[in-house]
């Protein structure tokens, strides 16, 4: 070995030692994340049962779809969805509105993201926008993640993230989240994000390229991707709806994309979402459509789903007393006979949250033209189940 080689050997050995030390130090300092379990408020104790529904979008665009709702720090709610001439069109925007759960007034809807705005801010060509998800962080900020596509169909989706410090009045410029190694495509959002005790956020995502599977993306409080955990794999399960049951335990319900079983799938985690059980079929049918899930208390859960194996013409509510193992349908939210134009009778993409008082707020797509908001309290739910 000549002197130059010897010097280079020592240099690169040093580099290897330093880099390995950095990686090991980072690994050792990885935070342990536990789910935050929000306990329902007590303001409804003694109050009467109520169930109220209203439209929060008014059919100004031919198509409106994929709503998501979050509670703001001031007690009001903010809902977002995509709207445009048709799904996948270049004129589709992310729109949103603010709902006062007490007076039930709705603010005029605002445009929160556009194709051109997203393209300019992320310095890349964007062709269309898709599913948005909105979430209220424990520090009061709002986080919105939404899908964009530069080329191809939804299988080529990527995610963009924005934050608001002023309850959704103004938003930070959209920033691209890098989530896959293959052109950073094939990641979509749908489910309600979950909070961890260290300030991180668990974002349920799914893939639709070669595989159809679900993952939990871990973002820090600034929206930087820190980790991700696989919920399922293969070509059958997407759109995870996660309900934490305790600091370490959670159950997720998955949309069944297979052409065979057509039942809602479920997976469980007992280490705060790091690993998940192999998805198993539940008794609830699933016509390849999204499901919403929320914990009532203890191991009791409520789910919103399409109660049919083929069509989305029936949107119903189901109750589980045993952490999602058994289910009983207890209320039908929507039903219409299957129309010739199938879109005319579809109710889909439910999003379910609870506000500070413990009330439930559900939004869903009504015939792909409007977004409906349903507000009910625990007393109503207890009477029904």
């Amino acid at each position, binding site marked *: 070995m000549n002197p130059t080689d010897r010097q280079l050997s020592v240099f690169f050995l040093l580099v290897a*030692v330093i880099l*390995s030390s950095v*990686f090991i130090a980072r690994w050792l300092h990885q935070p342990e994340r536990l789910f935050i379990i929000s306990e329902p408020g007590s303001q409804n104790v003694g109050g009467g049962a109520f169930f109220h529904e209203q439209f929060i979008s008014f059919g100004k665009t031919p198509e409106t779809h994929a709503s998501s709702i979050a509670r703001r720090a001031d007690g009001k709610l903010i809902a977002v969805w995509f709207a445009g001439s048709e799904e996948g069109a270049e004129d589709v925007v992310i729109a949103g509105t603010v709902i006062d759960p007490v007076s039930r007034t709705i603010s005029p809807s605002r445009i929160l993201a556009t194709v051109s705005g997203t393209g300019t801010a992320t*310095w890349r060509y964007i062709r269309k926008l898709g599913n948005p998800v909105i979430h209220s962080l424990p520090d009061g900020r709002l986080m919105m993640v939404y899908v964009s596509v530069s*080329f191809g169909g939804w299988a080529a989706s990527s995610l963009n993230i924005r934050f608001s410090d002023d309850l959704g009045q103004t938003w930070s410029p959209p*920033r691209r989240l890098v989530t896959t*190694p*293959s052109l950073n495509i094939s990641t979509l959002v749908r489910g309600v994000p979950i909070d961890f005790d260290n300030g991180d956020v668990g974002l349920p995502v799914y893939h639709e*390229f070669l595989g159809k599977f679900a993952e939990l993306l871990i973002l820090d409080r600034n929206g930087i991707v820190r980790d991700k955990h696989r919920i399922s794999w293969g070509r059958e399960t997407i759109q995870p709806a996660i309900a934490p049951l305790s600091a370490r335990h959670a159950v997720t319900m998955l949309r069944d994309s297979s052409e065979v079983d057509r039942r809602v799938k479920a997976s469980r985690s007992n280490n705060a979402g790091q690993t998940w059980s192999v998805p198993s079929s539940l008794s609830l049918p699933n016509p390849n459509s999204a499901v919403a899930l929320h914990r009532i208390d203890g191991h009791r859960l409520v789910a919103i789903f399409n109660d049919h194996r083929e069509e989305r013409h029936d949107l119903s509510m189901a109750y589980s007393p045993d952490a999602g193992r058994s289910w009983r349908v207890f209320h039908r939210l929507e039903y219409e006979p299957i129309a010739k134009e199938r879109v005319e009778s579809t109710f889909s993409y439910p999003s379910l949250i609870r506000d500070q008082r413990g009330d439930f707020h559900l939004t869903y797509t009504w015939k792909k033209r409007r977004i409906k908001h349903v507000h009910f309290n625990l007393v109503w739910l207890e009477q029904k189940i």
Partner: protein
Amino acid sequence: MNALNHYAGLFGCLLLLIALPLVHVRCPRFDRRVVSITIFAMLSFAVLPINSLPVIAYVRGVTADLSITSVFLLSIFIAGAYTGNRYFALPEKHRLHRILMLAGLILYPMALGLSPWDSYGMGYGGVGFALILPVLFVGLIIRRSWMVLLVLSCSILAYLAGLLESTNLWDYLIDIWLFLYVSVSAIWRLLSRLCRNRSMI
């Protein structure tokens, strides 16, 4: 996350735009003037605005950000085309190709959901890379692959500095275009060798 991420991402796409025509310019006969004109033409084309975005942003929309390894290799290729020098000895280049192909074979099928384990997740700071990297470095030091070591070191340092939008080490080491390129090159070399052996028989 800042403007630097965008500049780094756009720079990689710019190098790709410049390198693509150079592949053809370089083949018949090296000519520094032709190379210079090609570089200037592609630079001008890259910053051409279409609907408030430069052409390079459209390229980025399709290619996504290239890895630092790709940026390094493209830079070497363009510099080589301009000066006529070869900065990467063939055995070293092929060694890097083999490493990248192996990495891609581990990374892409699993990341696309073909297994319950996601190798891509390792790039967020798992212990895997802390164990693999010293072994790889020692192996390359024994083989005196200094250029390969330099490429890998630069990619890892860029990751630690957060140069790209991604926070995953894999995205600094490899990208799908690079994987396709090294795979096609390897298959081409293998076929050429087979043909040579057959003609010798």
